[in-house]
């Protein structure tokens, strides 16, 4: 009986220890934050109206890996989605267009992001969108992962 109790306590300790592990570092989430993606797509990735404009829901989007990569690198001229590739519109890697093609067109000019993301970071953001957001509902686990620690923002999820 005693051994059983000790084993039970050990098991409870192991489970609670596993549950209290801080969320694992996610390079994609880190790049998502660096790029200020949450400024428009929000911390939950569900987008919607905001100061950054009406942002796409990354949870409901049907874009595939290649399309996501392209849009993050090149932005979407004519919308508030900025480009994150430092060389976008300097050469013709983005839709075959350069800055000179937008001269005098304030409505459609490509908007520069707050911070550039390199190729590895863009790939990581795409992985994060596909693995943690796309087709999924906002969960408490995701919320805790985003904020990195317990917060009232995750209550009720």
């Amino acid at each position, binding site marked *: 009986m005693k051994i059983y109790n000790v084993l039970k306590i050990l098991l409870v300790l192991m489970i609670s220890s596993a549950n209290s592990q801080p969320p694992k570092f996610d390079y994609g989430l880190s790049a998502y934050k660096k790029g200020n993606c949450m400024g428009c797509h929000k911390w939950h990735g569900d987008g919607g109206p905001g100061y950054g404009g009406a942002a796409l829901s990354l949870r409901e989007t049907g874009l595939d890996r290649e399309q996501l990569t392209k849009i993050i690198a090149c932005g979407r001229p004519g919308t508030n989605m900025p480009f994150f590739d430092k060389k976008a519109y300097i050469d013709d890697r983005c839709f075959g267009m350069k800055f000179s093609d937008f001269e005098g067109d304030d409505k459609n000019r490509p908007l520069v992001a707050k911070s550039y993301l390199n190729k590895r970071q863009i790939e990581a953001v795409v992985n994060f969108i596909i693995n943690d957001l796309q087709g999924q509902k906002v969960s408490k686990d995701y919320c805790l992962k985003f904020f990195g620690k317990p917060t*009232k*923002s995750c209550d009720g999820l």
Partner: protein
Amino acid sequence: MLKYIITTIFAFVFSFNAFANTSWDDILNAKKAPQNWLTHHGSLDGHRFSGLDDINKKNVKKLRVAWTAMIGGVEGGGIWDHAGLEGTPIVEDGFMYVTDGWGSVYKFDATKNGKLVWKMNPDTDHDFPGAVTCCGINNRGVALINNTVVSHTLDGRLIVTNKETGEIQQEVQLADAAVSEVITAAPLIVKNSAITGVAGAEYGIRGWLHSTNLADGSKNWRTYTIPAPDEPGGDTWKQGPEAHSKDAWMHGGGSTWVVGSYDPDLDVIYWGVGNPGPDWDNEYRPGDNLYSNSVLALDADSGKIKWYFQYTPNDPYDFDGVNEQTLVDAKVFGKKTKAVLHADRNGFAYALDRESGKFLWGTPFVKKLDWTVGLDKYTGRPLDYDPNKDVQRYVPSTSGFRAQPEGTSCPGNMGGKNWPPTAYDPDRNMYYIPVIESCAMHVNVPQEKEWVAREFWLGGGPKMGPQITGSVTAMDVNSGKVVAKYDMDYPQLGGLVATKGGLVFSSHPDGTIVALDSDNLKELWSFETNTGVNAPPITFEAGGKQYVAILAGLGGAWPKWFLSSTPGLEKVEPGQTLYVFGL
């Protein structure tokens, strides 16, 4: 011997008073003690004018850094990766009180090159309010009364701190971040009360002003800026196309996030009220949407609204009329008038009779203004305002609406001017305005979804247009005419102070601090901090010497959303430094 004892007692009492007590009389007479910067705007009338003149046009070129201090609290929280500095330092008897974005208060000894006396950290919750503060992790400063320092926190508290020890004596929870109410404004002390404004219109709060009795923390009054249906003005919130818009007033915005002014003779508080929500869908909320985009004149003891003046009824532009109100006893059209001045985000500066609210003049202070053809010279209403319509179109190409989702206006949604404060020079009867010379596109997205706590309540959003620049603009209060402009490559995002020395101190958001000639706005001096400047300068005296102080640290909404209209500002890194300059 007796003389010695009396002198000693007198000196002790005097020094005790000087260090321990900020009386209501001291606050009322702040202008008579220009060595101090005793209230948020320097004086309760909101002038931001200093009577000091040791630093003047002739010698300002010799201005140098006297001392600096690093301010903490740069860390982010919620959706923000860093906090900013938007505070106005308060100075009394050589001691300076400043805040960081998270509401920590620092007391520096300015007579000892900025030696830190104490720091009060209120342990502000970072993530919960940080996830719903619309426009940055900010705190605009403290107020002094008796032996205490009164301040706010982003998570909605009023904090009363012992001025000598830095110990918290009292805290009162006023705002609720669960419904996106946060506090960024400095408090306004009136008698023995603290007046608090709230932020959160972009998340659909119902704005208010709250008066706290500092003796025990109890509520004197709370006045909502958006009336209930059975209150005067309640009929200006009608039902739109969506069934849930019948309750539009409950989420009507009308924030009060910039501190107001007070006239002791009339016993009236003047406070600006922000935009209605949802910001970009005025069809959701037919009617004038009182008291959004208005100035309120409130009885200081009861909070009762005595009169109001609305700048932009049924606003579709996010022309948040919240910023400061400047009370002047000045010549207007040649007649001595008790006026209240206000430079609105809609690009017009206004002078009203502050006893009655009667419109006196309204003049564009921006280079380009196209959302209306002008103001009615008798009422001050936009000429395109149609009293027979519940939904205003103004100049139709300038706003987004359901039949035409996009439109471009000048000024844009960040306004011709934002929260950074104006300055008024009574000697010159001149009103100095920090200007954002801008245009931006407005995109309407019908507010079909019901209000959800802690989600944006915008009905659309802005889209960046042409490059945004800025200026400092001088207006003659007598005529209401623009008389000078100091052009800037970037918008003015920090605010101003004017001095008896014939100077206006200003800043550029990429880190340059400048002194301008009050008569013609020519630049006389500059200093590069090489960080963002989003805070107003002040001037004060310590140890018999005049200084100029300003906080430097990138903050606010600009770095998050508007950088693509100000190329070059993306290179500015966050920093948290207090600069103090002297001759």
